[in-house]
């Protein structure tokens, strides 16, 4: 079972050095324990572009995120975990390491 752990924050500023160090330790542990699938940082939504090609004609391209909100996804982990209890524990560890909120979402 895979889960997406979205890192939620109200600014896209980079992690501090201490946060960065804690994230590295956390990631290494996730890899050692076999939970790691993938991770990435995204930062601010200013650089986002929304593409809508549902009509199949000329794609509609819009500058900015799909929705303006105070908080947004600044990064994510994808993990492999047997159940939600394990995923929540990892999310708690990740949230502590990067010092930001984490949203847990199961893959379909």
């Amino acid at each position, binding site marked *: 079972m895979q889960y997406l752990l979205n890192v939620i924050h109200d600014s896209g500023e980079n992690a501090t050095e201490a946060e960065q160090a804690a994230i590295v330790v956390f990631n290494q542990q996730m890899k050692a324990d076999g939970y790691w699938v993938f991770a990435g940082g995204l930062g601010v939504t200013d650089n986002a572009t929304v593409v809508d090609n549902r009509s199949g004609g000329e794609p509609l391209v819009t500058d900015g995120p799909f929705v303006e909100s105070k908080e947004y996804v600044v990064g994510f982990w994808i993990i492999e975990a*047997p*159940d939600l209890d394990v995923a929540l524990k990892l999310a708690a560890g990740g949230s502590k390491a990067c010092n930001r909120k984490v949203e847990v979402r199961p893959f*379909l």
Partner: protein
Amino acid sequence: MNVEEALARAQREEWARVVAALARRFGDLDVAEEASAEAFAVAVERWPVDGVPPNPGAWLTTTAQRKAIDRIRREDKRDAKQREARMWQDEAPEPLGAVEDERLRLVFTCCHPALAADARVALTLRLLGGLTVAEIARAFLVQEGAMARRITRAKDKIKAARIPYRVPAAADLPGRVSGVLAVLYLVFNEGYLATGPGTDPVRQDLTAEAIRLTRLLRTLLPEDGEVAGLLALMLMSEARRTARVSASGELVALGEQDRGAWDAALITEGHRLVRERLASGEAPGRYQLLAAINAVHTDARDVRDTDWSQVVALYDQLVRIDPSPVVALNRAIAVAELDGPEVAMAAVDRLDDALTGYHAYHATRADLLRRLGRSGESRAAYDRAIELAGNTAEVAALTRRRDQLP
């Protein structure tokens, strides 16, 4: 025992066991719930004709399993992805030994912290308590359709997010048990001081259900002090139920209740649990302290015999583990009896910011101000308490007190 009694008893005693056994076998709460409901419906039809089977629980489980297998065969035409979603339990779980009661898994799944609080309550009452969706909807003054959606949504999340059907590991158990107790206490309190203009002020259906489920939890976790504490607290509160509402429908304060009308058997049982916890020598948690406070109250034949210094000492202990303003308010009420209303008033005034939207805060202030002879301020506090109170019997009592002010 006639057939109706046998059916009622099976509903009470076997429902959770049947649901839990099916959930374990098929790994799907939906299948477990609906197949169990079908099996009970078959019993209602067959038992009056065929007679009550010698082992009703086994009969119901077997019947429910057949219904579940039928349902799964029908569903097998669905895609493999959905069948895979059924495998969300451990393949070889042995957390509490082989004799572990399946119902315990069910409790922890229904009260999982990843579910919304109202969904936990609804799922617990449906899957463990065996209440119908209509009954739960009525209990919480929600439309039946809305309650059905709430339950369906919770079950969908359990499946999609793979909330495990498992007793938590020992390290996580205290936190998870306290989540379960919070759900049961919420059900009890909604019965004990029911909200809403159209309901009875005391809902015995809910208090009785909460006690029944807490008793069940106690048989499943006999060593847990907080489970014993909550059960004792509920029993001693329930013991006072009939004395709490007057003939004219007013809530009667503890000090003014007819103590002869208290249920002596429930109090005895509650006291026995409290003594058992004291004898354990373990540090008491929140529910054990609340139970101990209730034991002091119910120990006094006359309100004047109440050992208020003991009550305040227990509240001091409670404040240390739960420094919430509501606990501080209840402590102040006991302080008023021990050190007088003036001392209590000073403590209550400090809670203004935190509790300004809480009816009991204003009711307490109103009472203290009345005792201090500050009638004008008391009246204003009563007005505010009446405005905020949701319980009809409490509103009636507050209104009379306000109208009796000089």
